[in-house]
């Protein structure tokens, strides 16, 4: 193996140019035309996680400006930036910086744009107009319906779909062979099933499995089981059994060690409850969904996460005792 650097494969095997991208062929063709014509409108990339939205934006910029494209691209992430004001400052600063040769515009990539409030999006719309002379915006979002209409109407819309089975499996094979990793075909199938067309997730599972030895079905199951914070399931089961105090300790651990936000925890609880892992009657399942939805709404409105989730767990243990789960 020598002294070759080791990095996350999600980073190492990210396509650099549009030509290297697999899947999403219609989209790639249209983007390639923008690169050739050296012109483009504002773009809105929508689709599930791990389908190539961010990668396509980088590849497009690479094909427009060459290897040193990052000097002409500003990469922002709505969920990491502190509000629209910092975004405005950064865009303003960036718009003033030097322009690329031959091409009339620079690119602002705003990832996870659907995490912005509609007020912030209104401000963003004004920004897009203000600097439309010198910049083009690429917005990436999981849910396009969360993007306000005035922005949607100013962008060319691209819908990314989950990546096809054969494309994911071929990519995994390519990576495995390149990394000298032994694998079973069956194991790759399982990785595809679990990743649900999310390439980043598929590659992460492959890497973690490869680190543990030969990539077999058994190892993949182990990795998936261990990585999914099983704690959330334990937490629900503890509450349903009436072990409220234990459930609450797990909640603390999940929020501190993994740094999950209240909303993340709610979503994971929802995922666990709607699956078949937890044995409860369907009637109770509906009841829980109703209350969980209420808790989700309260947290989204800025209410205290710890208090709301504790209230949920207290409710769950009460229900659990009543119906004798």
């Amino acid at each position, binding site marked *: 193996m020598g002294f070759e650097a080791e990095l*996350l494969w999600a980073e190492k095997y990210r396509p650099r140019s549009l030509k290297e991208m697999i899947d999403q062929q219609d989209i790639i063709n249209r983007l390639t035309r923008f690169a050739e014509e050296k012109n483009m409108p504002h773009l809105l990339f929508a689709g599930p996680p791990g389908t190539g939205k961010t990668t396509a934006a980088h590849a497009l910029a690479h094909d427009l400006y060459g290897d040193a494209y990052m000097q002409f691209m500003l990469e922002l992430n709505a969920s990491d930036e502190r509000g629209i004001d910092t975004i405005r400052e950064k865009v303003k600063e960036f718009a003033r910086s030097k322009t690329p040769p031959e091409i009339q515009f620079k690119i602002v990539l705003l990832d996870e744009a659907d995490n912005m409030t509609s007020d912030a999006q209104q401000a963003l719309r004004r920004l897009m107009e203000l600097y439309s002379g010198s910049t083009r915006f690429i917005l990436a979002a999981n849910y396009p319906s969360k993007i306000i209409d005035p922005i949607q109407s100013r962008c060319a819309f691209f819908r990314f779909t989950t990546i096809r089975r054969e494309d994911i499996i071929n990519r995994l094979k390519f990576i495995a062979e390149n990394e000298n990793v032994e694998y079973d075909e069956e194991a790759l199938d399982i990785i595809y099933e679990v990743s649900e067309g999310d390439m980043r997730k598929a590659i992460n599972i492959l890497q973690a499995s490869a680190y543990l030895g030969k990539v077999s079905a058994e190892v993949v199951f182990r990795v998936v089981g261990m990585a999914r914070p099983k704690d959330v399931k334990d937490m629900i089961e503890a509450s349903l059994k009436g072990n409220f105090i234990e459930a609450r300790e797990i909640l603390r651990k999940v929020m501190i060690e993994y740094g999950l936000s209240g909303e993340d925890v709610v979503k994971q609880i929802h995922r666990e409850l709607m699956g078949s892992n937890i044995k409860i009657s369907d009637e109770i399942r509906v009841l829980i969904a109703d209350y969980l939805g209420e808790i989700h709404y309260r947290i989204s409105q800025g209410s205290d996460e710890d208090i709301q989730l504790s209230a949920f767990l207290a409710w769950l243990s009460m229900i659990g005792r009543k119906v004798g789960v």
Partner: protein
Amino acid sequence: MPWVIKYRPKKVDDVVNQEEAKSTVLTWIHSWLEGKRPTKKALLLYGPPGVGKTSLVESIAAEYGLELLELNASDYRRTQDIRKTVAVASQKKPLFKKMMIILMDEVDGLSPRSDAGGIEELMKIIPNSINPIILTANDPWKDSLRPLREYVTMVQFKQLTTNQIIAVLQNICNKEKIQCDREALKFIAEKSLGDVRGAINDLEAVAEGYGRVTFNIVSLVVKPREKNIDLWRTLNSVFYAREFWQARKAVNTSEEDYETLMAWINDNIPAKYEDPEDVFRAWDSLARASIFLKRAKSGNWFLLPYVFDLIGPGVSFARKNGQVLRNRFSYPAKIKEMAQLKSVRENREGVARTIAKRIHASKRIVKSEVLPYLFLMMKYGDINRVSKLSSYYSFTEDQLRYLAGSRVKEIISSMNREVSSVKETKSAESSKYAAKKKRRSRSK
């Protein structure tokens, strides 16, 4: 002489029921006396009022023959005062005694506004002090003390139980030769909520005024101090209220801000209620209060009264089935953990930031989608790959410990081996090169 002074502990042994705190403080003082200055030059003794924080320091000074510079809250308020007194004392060798202890009471009483700069001044003084500095506080988790907490070793003093306080009171009654009913002492002790000093004051007031201490007198005279209701009192009133107005008043007159109060109630519901329905009703009420508070804070301040209704009476009357448990109130874990687990948070955010930048995703995505796999790789993965991965992302030792747990040593030594083997190959190559050069020059 007031009894609180007369019966103040004179010897270290007189400080009762604080064994853990006592041994921590003594070990720390011993290392100063042996000339080994501890890394942290200050202690912060914390706990409810009247549990012996100041007394312990005074008795240590007396017993070991050390000079004691005592500064009360009112003495050292402003930056200049602190410079004049503490800064000077921190560099001074006492003339006649072995060592000087600097004791500053009630640092949580420093107001961030009118005593501006006081805490910052202390943080400058502490690391360079040649004398041990001891601070005391009732509430060390106050926001204004956050920066200071890194400069001190924290020592917790426990709240005394009713029985422990009764024993102290009984001892005084014996020495003063006063007739005291056990029931009366119990009443005083309960009303004091763990504050020995307060209990002794109450005892003295009754004894002086009536010449005897009976339950009838005591139950009429001794009242919980309403002025300056502190957290313990507020919580007690909330969880034990009999009438709507009692619970509401407790919340309304509390000097704590609403969030602190809610954090306390949030963590103490399971200590006080047991029946699942009671527990849920209490939490439901608190959760609804949290919604109202959010609404009030976004400009609708007229909604604040409903917050009081829900966190006071709402929690009190949630109890329908069970008893109030006898567990003591505890500090909210959230506030404690936030201080103690600050480093976990820092490492987590640091790792997430590094990776987010490299894979072009948000920290949020990295935390939920990448970290779970990274934990696995780092904890159980092939050591060769793991150590290379660690060097590539330049994880710090703390970050490695966060990611790989106890495996951190193995990873670091493997990283070091790698570095040295790279060097060896390089030096081997360069010596080969040098040999070639020699040969070439010889052939010339």
